[in-house]
């Protein structure tokens, strides 16, 4: 009996420590990122680092404004291109789709989510980049190519969350709209969709998080020039690709500047997470 009680207690402790691993992981990640990045930022100067327009590691100039803007632009355009399609697709899935077609479309959406980013990147490299070159000029490695590719990649994220939000709206809303004489389409678009507002917004925010954090696929199609974004068909660089491309050969202050770049990205992600969490709680409330 005594050994049993001991075993119960011991295993409880094991379960508890396993549960604390995620807390520990977040602490460690923050510690190593901020610990590795802040000294570098301080050496470069916070203002020079965040608002400097020139990134020339060989000359000891580390300004990451081009990359901050690059990340924001590419995420913004990806949302602009992807969100309308994703929302409408989610509405179709939740409210218009015949059962039979749903059995094809739903797995198709999860397949889109499952394709590795390196495969997306390769597709962008061999299809999107040449197409952009041909239709819009430039060499094809551009903001436009990157955000088009990202728009495709965030579709499943936004679709899944939005569809769930739409399905969570009580059926009575829809029926009341019908009873007032609204046709099916109006009931869905003007009653159900507004009721699912928080959830839809949560989906878009989650999509933004995916887009701003995407690395491999983006690195393969945007040209990666470390300069201020100069237009839709010109190359640019994001925070993620800055770390991805230069970490391999960096040393000393250059390395610290790259870790500091990741810190800026991390702060963006934390803000997005915070916003997402807020929206999700509001959706459940």
């Amino acid at each position: 009996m005594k050994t049993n009680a001991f075993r119960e207690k011991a295993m409880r402790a094991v379960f508890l420590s396993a549960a604390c691993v995620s807390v520990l992981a977040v602490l460690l990640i923050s510690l190593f990122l901020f610990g590795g990045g802040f000294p570098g930022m301080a050496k470069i100067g916070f203002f020079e680092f965040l608002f400097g327009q020139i990134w020339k590691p060989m000359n000891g100039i580390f300004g990451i404004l081009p990359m901050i803007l690059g990340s924001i632009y590419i995420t913004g355009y990806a949302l602009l291109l992807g969100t309308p399609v994703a929302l409408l697709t989610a509405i179709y899935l939740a409210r218009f789709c015949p059962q039979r077609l749903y059995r094809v479309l739903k797995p198709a959406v999860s397949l889109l989510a499952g394709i590795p980013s390196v495969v997306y990147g390769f597709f962008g490299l061999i299809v999107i980049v040449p197409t952009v070159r041909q239709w819009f000029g430039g060499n094809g490695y551009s903001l436009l190519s990157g955000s088009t590719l990202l728009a495709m990649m965030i579709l499943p994220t936004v679709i899944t969350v939005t569809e769930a939000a739409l399905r969570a709206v009580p059926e009575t809303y829809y029926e009341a709209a019908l009873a007032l004489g609204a046709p099916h389409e109006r009931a869905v678009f003007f009653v159900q969709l507004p009721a699912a507002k928080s959830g839809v917004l949560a989906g878009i925010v989650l999509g933004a998080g995916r887009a701003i954090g995407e690395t491999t696929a983006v690195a393969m199609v945007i040209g990666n020039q470390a300069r201020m974004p100069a237009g839709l068909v010109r190359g640019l660089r994001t925070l993620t690709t800055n770390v991805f491309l230069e970490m391999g050969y960096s040393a000393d202050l250059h390395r610290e500047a790259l870790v500091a770049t990741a810190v800026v990205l991390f702060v963006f992600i934390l803000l997005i997470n915070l916003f997402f969490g807020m929206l999700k709680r509001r959706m459940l409330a």
Partner: protein
Amino acid sequence: MTARLLRWLVVGAAALTLGSLALVVGYILIQGVPHLRPELFELEYTTQNVSMLPAIVNTLIMTAVSLAIALPLGVFAAVYLVEYARRGSRLVALIRITAETLAGIPSIIYGLFGLLFFVTALKMGFSILAGALTLALMILPLVLRTTEEALQAVPDLYREGAFGLGAGRLRTVFRIVLPSAAPGILAGVILAVGRIVGETAALLYTAGTVASFPKSILSSGRTLSVHMFALASEGLYVDQAYATAVVLLIVVFGINTLSGSIAKRIAKG
């Protein structure tokens, strides 16, 4: 009039979504399948044959090691949250928030952390182990959440039945609750496998890019995705990159079919 326009819009959007999937998959399969030659699967990697067999083996090892670390941690954590923790406890809230945070962190940050912590601070060097530990952290929130959902779906009657027969909490968890939740946990594991197989950014600076069979868990080795990234970005092996993409897509198909059929079985009950 508006009604018809709206209907066209949603149908068009759904077609566009399906179309982009068909475009990506179709293009890669049509261009890639003819390049699937036997020399791509030779035992030894050389710059002539650019064999992907070592990368496939590395991927299997990487998946096994990452799961061996993340699965017990994730499942035990979920057991604590669902079966032991008091509702509304502060610790539980903290664990939930940190797990959500982990789920939102992009893979490049995991890769950088792995480089700073596992590779450099713990002196593991570029190794399968460092890569697997990094990936384990990355998939932990996924395993945790799916297991949590699976445990919550087990009816309380089962637990009460076990307690009524005199079983302790621990025995109830291992003999009754976890077996009934197994399909749900498995579905989560399969999703995690998908993320491991598809990962590049987190592995480039933790597991490295050596293209041969690993001698041990402490040697560097590239997985199939990293292999494909190397081929595609070098620009010399476009045909081989196509072929690798086909293999990756086949793996993803397999994973999706598997998780879909498990989900269906769970839904049937």
